[in-house]
């Protein structure tokens, strides 16, 4: 401590600032401070907020490619489909070698979710309607929807809110009412039609609704741009296309799809040094593709997978030989995942349902309430005990302990961890154990004081002697936590992560934080006594 005081102070400063920064989203709402840079929020596990968990096994029976890429392909497909399903914050993870865990918060019915996830990919090529037609389709749909507003409670509610706002502001008429509620959901950006981030889920629900589908002019359909084709992970507004209802060409005519990187010497700036996807049709597909492209030069051809538009390139020319490329603002990963989706290879590894769990949100709410209550009671009793038993030193330990809890929550937020019920239990236990390091040190300091040492030397000696013990004891616990994390799944992993963070936090607090306060605040000057 004496040798590098500045190093410790910098560490403490980083620790405190880091904790405060990552705790901040818990305390302030995004709406009030939209420019605050820290956006992560603590995820609640399925057991706390309710939802469906499905575990799927990748069928390896007729596997042609290697297992790991087949699993990755499937995860990519599932992510895309779930996005289409409109579930907020799904988690899709690989487990062991050939299992995929899908968690859908807020979803109740495991059967329909399972069906959606295990269905096989379906690729289609559809013509994008030009600007004039798109405008017409949107307006026509909007008129139809307006007439049948009673079928769409969500839209009706939106309109009512809007009306209330208009009344309160005293405006003559609002844009929503003027254009029809459906029309108001669709804006324009450059040449594309877009839906605001906040309206995406509403729009997705509409597109799935069979009542809505009947109100769209019969030759056309709406289709969202796929989240996989975007660079911003779907944070901004999303493009919506009006495409022909009938496919010009479908994926069964495709022979092969591959991600490639253009040579740096390539003439076309869209290809040079950039990833793109090359397609090869079979003979029948090649003929059809030639005809479709020849008939529609200058139009856009949408590549639609599972009713989501992956890209919509302009047809430059008639394309013979059944070869085509898809260019776009791809990163390598995006190009690869699109190639995966287009390729029949992804269908070689069907998914078998393995287990499914539905957790009621009400049970989750009860668990949070009683878990937090139990935690509060435990913490308060421990804090009071430390205060009585170690007096001023106990107060310091208490202060740091509360800080440690904040650190655990902040670290979980920062690492994108998930708080599960065993995780809460892990935090509460950590509180009990976090005191341990302090108890060890304080007891040793008392012994040294009893032996007649001055407070300064007693603190020094106490720390020197106990640090080895604290390391030994905590490393063994970390071994247990690591094994849990490595071999556990789901909630157990969450528990292991909170336990690990708790151990690291409590070691830091006891060895560095408490010591700094003791030496810099409690033992300033030539004090002869130490309150311990």
């Amino acid at each position, binding site marked *: 401590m004496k040798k590098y005081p500045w190093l410790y102070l910098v560490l403490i400063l980083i620790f405190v600032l880091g904790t405060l920064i990552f705790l901040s989203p818990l305390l302030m709402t995004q709406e009030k401070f939209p420019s605050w840079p820290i956006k992560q929020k603590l995820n609640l596990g399925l057991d706390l907020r309710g939802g469906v968990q499905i575990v799927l096994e990748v069928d390896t029976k007729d596997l042609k490619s290697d297992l790991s890429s087949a699993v990755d392909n499937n995860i990519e497909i599932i992510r895309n489909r779930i996005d289409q399903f409109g579930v907020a914050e799904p988690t899709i993870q690989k487990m062991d070698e050939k299992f995929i865990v899908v968690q859908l918060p807020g979803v109740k019915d495991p059967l329909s979710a399972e069906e959606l996830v295990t269905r096989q990919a379906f690729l289609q090529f559809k013509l994008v309607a030009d600007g004039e037609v798109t405008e017409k389709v949107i307006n026509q749909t909007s008129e139809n929807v307006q007439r049948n507003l009673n079928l769409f409670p969500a839209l009706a509610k939106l309109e009512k809110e809007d009306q209330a706002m208009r009344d309160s502001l005293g405006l003559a008429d609002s844009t929503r009412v003027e254009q029809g509620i459906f029309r108001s959901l669709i804006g324009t950006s450059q040449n594309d039609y877009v839906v605001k981030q906040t309206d995406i889920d509403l729009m997705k629900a509409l597109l799935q609704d069979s009542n809505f589908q009947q109100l769209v002019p019969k030759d056309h359909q709406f289709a969202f741009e796929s989240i996989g084709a975007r660079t911003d992970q779907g944070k901004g507004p999303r493009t919506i296309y009006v495409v022909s209802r009938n496919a010009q060409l479908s994926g069964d005519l495709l022979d092969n799809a591959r991600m490639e990187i253009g040579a740096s010497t390539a003439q076309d700036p869209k290809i040079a040094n950039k990833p793109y996807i090359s397609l090869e049709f079979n003979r029948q597909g090649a003929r059809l593709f030639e005809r479709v492209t020849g008939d529609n030069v200058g139009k856009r051809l949408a590549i639609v997978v599972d009713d989501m538009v992956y890209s919509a390139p302009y047809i430059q020319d008639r394309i013979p030989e059944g070869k085509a490329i898809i260019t776009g603002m791809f990163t390598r990963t995006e190009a690869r995942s699109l190639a995966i989706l287009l390729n029949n290879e992804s269908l070689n590894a069907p998914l078998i349902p393995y287990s499914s769990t539905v957790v009621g949100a009400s049970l989750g709410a009860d668990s949070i309430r009683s878990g937090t209550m139990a935690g509060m009671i435990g913490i308060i009793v421990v804090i009071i005990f430390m205060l009585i038993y170690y007096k001023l030193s106990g107060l310091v330990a208490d202060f740091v302990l509360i800080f440690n809890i904040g650190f655990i929550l902040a670290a979980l937020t920062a690492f994108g961890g998930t708080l599960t019920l065993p995780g809460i239990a892990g935090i509460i236990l950590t509180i009990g154990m976090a005191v341990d390091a302090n108890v060890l040190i304080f007891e040793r300091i008392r012994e040294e004081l009893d032996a007649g040492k001055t407070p300064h030397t007693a603190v020094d000696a106490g720390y020197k002697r106990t640090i080895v013990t604290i390391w*030994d004891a905590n490393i063994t616990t970390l071994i247990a936590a690591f094994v849990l994390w490595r071999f556990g799944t789901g909630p157990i992993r969450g528990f292991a992560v909170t336990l690990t963070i708790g151990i690291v936090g409590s070691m830091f607090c006891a060895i560095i934080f408490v010591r700094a306060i003791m030496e810099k605040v409690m033992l300033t000057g030539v004090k002869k006594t130490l309150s311990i």
Partner: protein
Amino acid sequence: MRLFQNANIPFVKIRRTAYVISVILILAGIAGLIINGLNWSIDFTGGMAATINLKPAKAGVPPLQIDKLRNLVTSNGFKDAEVQRYGEVEEAFFLIKVKGSQKEEVKEQLLDIIRDHLPEYVEGRDLENDVIIEINVVGQKAGAAMQSNAILAVLIALVLMVIYIWIRFEFTFGLMAIAALFHDVLIIVGIFALTGKEITIQIIAALLTIVGYSINDTIVIFDRIREDLKIYRKDPVPVVFNRSINRTLNRTIITAGTTLITSLSLYFFGGAVLHDFAFAISLGIIFGTYSSIFVASNLVIDTYQITHKEKKSIQHLTKKK
């Protein structure tokens, strides 16, 4: 304020009594394991667990008797179903468990039974969202894999810990620390077998936490022994051991106390889901503390006396690194 001022309890001297108590506890646990076996949850056996609520919406309908529900469920396709009630009679929460392989449509099947035979309890309520609170279906293969994974995890953790203590201390110390761990885990698993409580994934997590806690406790004492062996070179080994255990007693009891406070508050106020978890942890703290004080270091002394390797081991332990 001090808990134990200059404590001098003859822990080493009374170790044989402690051994007898431990052996009785372990034998009782093993007997429980042999007679009752472990009640593995469906996480490990595969099967279905559903929590349903059958509180009638209309006033005047008497609360559903558990026997009636049990008869209905067992006579309509779920022959081996287990039915339990959760909480108050009027609240009418029931837990239905069926072990072994289950079909996907199990939820529909269950809802059909309730709809057909108990209409008065579900009238006017949303079956999917209101009646079924929670349902968990696990494939049999998944369960078996879980079971071997859990056992594997515990074994790997133990082996890694022996290696660590071996490196940091000495082999006898590592071995006896692990013996103390087996002692704790066996007693707790035995209590679970005797009481018929379920071994869920959470309980496995609790067992590993106990392993971590107990080893922590043991190492604090070992560490003090190692230090004192260097200081009091002339004292007989049992005296040094006893002094070290006494000197760390304050810390051992206080830490056990604070951790026990938090786990007991989980047990009493944490709700049904955390109940068994907190039960296992509380037991673990009690037996972990007991084994750290009475079992681990005393076993080291006995091993030394039997193998006559005391001198060599202590030289190894106290040599400057």
